[in-house]
């Protein structure tokens, strides 16, 4: 039972001392973001979580300013967005940041997820971190989809129509659910209003779930490229300054990519059709989602049955929830898994193939490729992952992060060193 009353603390600054005694946020920051013991062998793939967090903050900040000038009505939405682009001071920059930031967010999160898959970051004791991450992915997808509807261009309108109609595949109650989602009998003003409201709400929920994601991470500690547990203080470094500065390098590189997109190629990832106002009497020849949904779109279209396609598409994400229990291997990192390493490469190639298939019309060879890709996607999780966890003979694991091991070429530099914990 924790003691109630003022908390002891060592802060010299009297104001900080006074506040921390009553609300120990400075102690928490010190514990979680300065002293927090972090494996010393992270590579740059461990930057992506921090970068995605920065991206989330940029999305929220730019979105707040867009909302100040946006008109969520079918009559005014399109014009208000383009008024932002033309007449609001720096409006073009804020909107290009928000628009391209959404794409970059998915890019960062996908790298983050594939990193987790390669290094086995989803395995015990990190199952909840992983599952909260899948919740974050689903929330992001919902937010991105509803945000894409707001400019009320042709792709906004027809994308909203296609995606909401998916729920019509549910037997018996499907059509009632779709009408309930629309707030009417077609995508219209009520739909736009509620999507705007939810698009503003969901990021707050993302922040909340992100907090839990990090809380769980800071309870069990980070995984690392070797996938072995931290054996003691000689294996770790304090988070600050070692990883604050390393994350900063990644954040700077990310900002360069972001700036090149915003200032030089703002339309690279956008569909030109969305610069045509929504017209319910004119269907665009090709309704394609944003690039980050293409693999899922390909899975949807690979089944010649609407309910089957929708079910498979939802399961393609939901299956990630049970991945920690599908993986039977005691070894986390693919560095020591000679077969899973190549299956991971195959899986990445498969997702890229599905993305390519999703960007093409489902005719000719693309039907076959889509079905092969979809089959391989589920075979990976349902057969390869459980089976090769048992069949594969993993390489010998190093004794600890800081100990050199025989034959571990990748570890040549991981020599035991005095632990430099105290650093300004």
């Amino acid at each position, binding site marked *: 039972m924790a003691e109630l009353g003022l908390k002891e603390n060592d802060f010299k600054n009297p104001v900080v001392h006074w506040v921390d005694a009553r609300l120990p946020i400075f102690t928490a920051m010190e514990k979680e973001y300065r002293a927090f013991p972090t494996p010393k*062998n992270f590579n740059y793939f461990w930057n992506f979580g921090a970068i995605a967090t920065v991206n989330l903050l940029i999305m929220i900040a730019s979105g707040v300013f867009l909302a100040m000038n946006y008109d969520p009505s079918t009559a005014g939405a399109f014009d208000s967005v383009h008024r932002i682009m033309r007449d609001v001071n720096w409006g073009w920059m804020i909107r*290009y940041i928000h628009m391209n930031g959404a794409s970059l967010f998915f890019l960062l999160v*996908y790298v983050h997820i594939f990193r987790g898959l390669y290094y086995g970051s989803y395995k015990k004791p990190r199952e909840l971190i992983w599952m909260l991450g899948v919740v974050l992915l689903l929330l992001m997808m919902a937010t991105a989809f509803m945000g894409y509807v707001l400019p009320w261009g042709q792709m906004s309108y027809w994308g909203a129509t296609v995606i909401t109609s998916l729920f019509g595949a549910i037997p018996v109650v499907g059509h009632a659910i779709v009408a309930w989602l629309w707030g009417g009998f077609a995508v219209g003003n009520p739909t736009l209003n509620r999507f705007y409201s939810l698009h503003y709400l969901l990021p707050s929920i993302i922040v909340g779930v992100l907090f839990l994601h990090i809380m769980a991470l800071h309870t069990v500690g980070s995984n690392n490229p070797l996938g072995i547990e931290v054996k003691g203080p000689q294996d770790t470094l304090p988070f600050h300054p*070692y990883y604050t500065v390393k994350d900063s390098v990644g954040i700077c590189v990310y900002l360069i990519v972001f700036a090149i997109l*915003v*200032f030089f190629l703002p339309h690279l990832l956008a569909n030109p059709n969305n610069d045509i*106002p929504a017209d319910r009497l004119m269907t665009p020849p*090709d309704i394609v989602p944003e690039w980050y949904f293409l693999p899922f779109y390909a899975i949807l279209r690979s089944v010649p049955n609407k309910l089957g396609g929708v079910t498979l598409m939802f399961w393609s994400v939901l299956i990630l929830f049970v991945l920690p229990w599908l993986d039977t291997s005691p070894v986390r990192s693919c560095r020591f898994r000679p077969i899973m390493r190549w299956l991971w490469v195959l899986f990445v190639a498969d997702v890229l193939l599905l993305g390519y298939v999703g960007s093409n019309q489902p005719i000719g060879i693309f039907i076959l490729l889509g079905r092969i890709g979809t089959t391989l996607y589920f075979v990976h999780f349902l057969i390869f992952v459980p089976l090769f966890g048992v069949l594969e003979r993993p390489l010998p694991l190093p004794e600890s992060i800081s100990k050199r091991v025989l034959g571990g070429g990748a570890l040549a530099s*991981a*020599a035991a060193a005095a632990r430099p914990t105290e650093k300004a």
Partner: protein
Amino acid sequence: MRALALALLALGLALPALPAAAQGIPPLPHVYWSFQGPFGTIDTAAAQRGYQVYKQVCAACHSMSQFHFRDLAGIGYTPAEIKAIAASVQVPGPPNAQGRRSLVPGKPADAFPSPFPTAAAAKAAFNGVVPPDMSLMANAFQGGPTFIYAILNGFRNPPPGVTVPPGRFYNLYFPTHFIGMPPPLHNGAVTYADGTPATVPQMAHDVATFLYYVANPHADARKRIGVHVVLFLVFLTGLTYALKRKVWSDVEH
């Protein structure tokens, strides 16, 4: 553009392949634009000629409702010239004493007026299709200004065996080949103030340049600022990386 696409691909994600061209549509011609590339800027002389084509040809049918007279400043018109241009056009004014809307001479803050009072009126005049608004036309098609250029140069006699529906015209580059717009340009359709010979390719190129500006009025400023932003960030990345090396210098990792 291609290089960045490859870089993104290398980061592990497929970019959407452009949808395959509709059947029988030739690839767009290669056209040089002054505003292409990271350092390109809008050729204001061409854009001014393009504005003249817009005013004398396109504006008869197409609206450009998001573009204001004041925006002409970005292609080199002076405030006095803009005032005169606006005043020469009649725009809807405030309701008069009888509550009817009157037409008054435009001011720089006014948007370009539409040639038809309502979309329904435009529809009635053009076989049920409203001539698309030109405010974002240069962004709204794959190929952008090059697509506009190709369409304006793409009117042909239909190949043998092809019947063009009534009220439609055969165009090489239009997705269905049958476009509702009659060929809008012919040699000498306008007399350029600067003496440039008004051939169809010249006018098409000029008006596409103008429409690129109309759709992207901040493009020049955007790229200029972008150069500074990227240079700063490269410098900051260098500093941060040096700091990282220094902080990590006492760790064997």
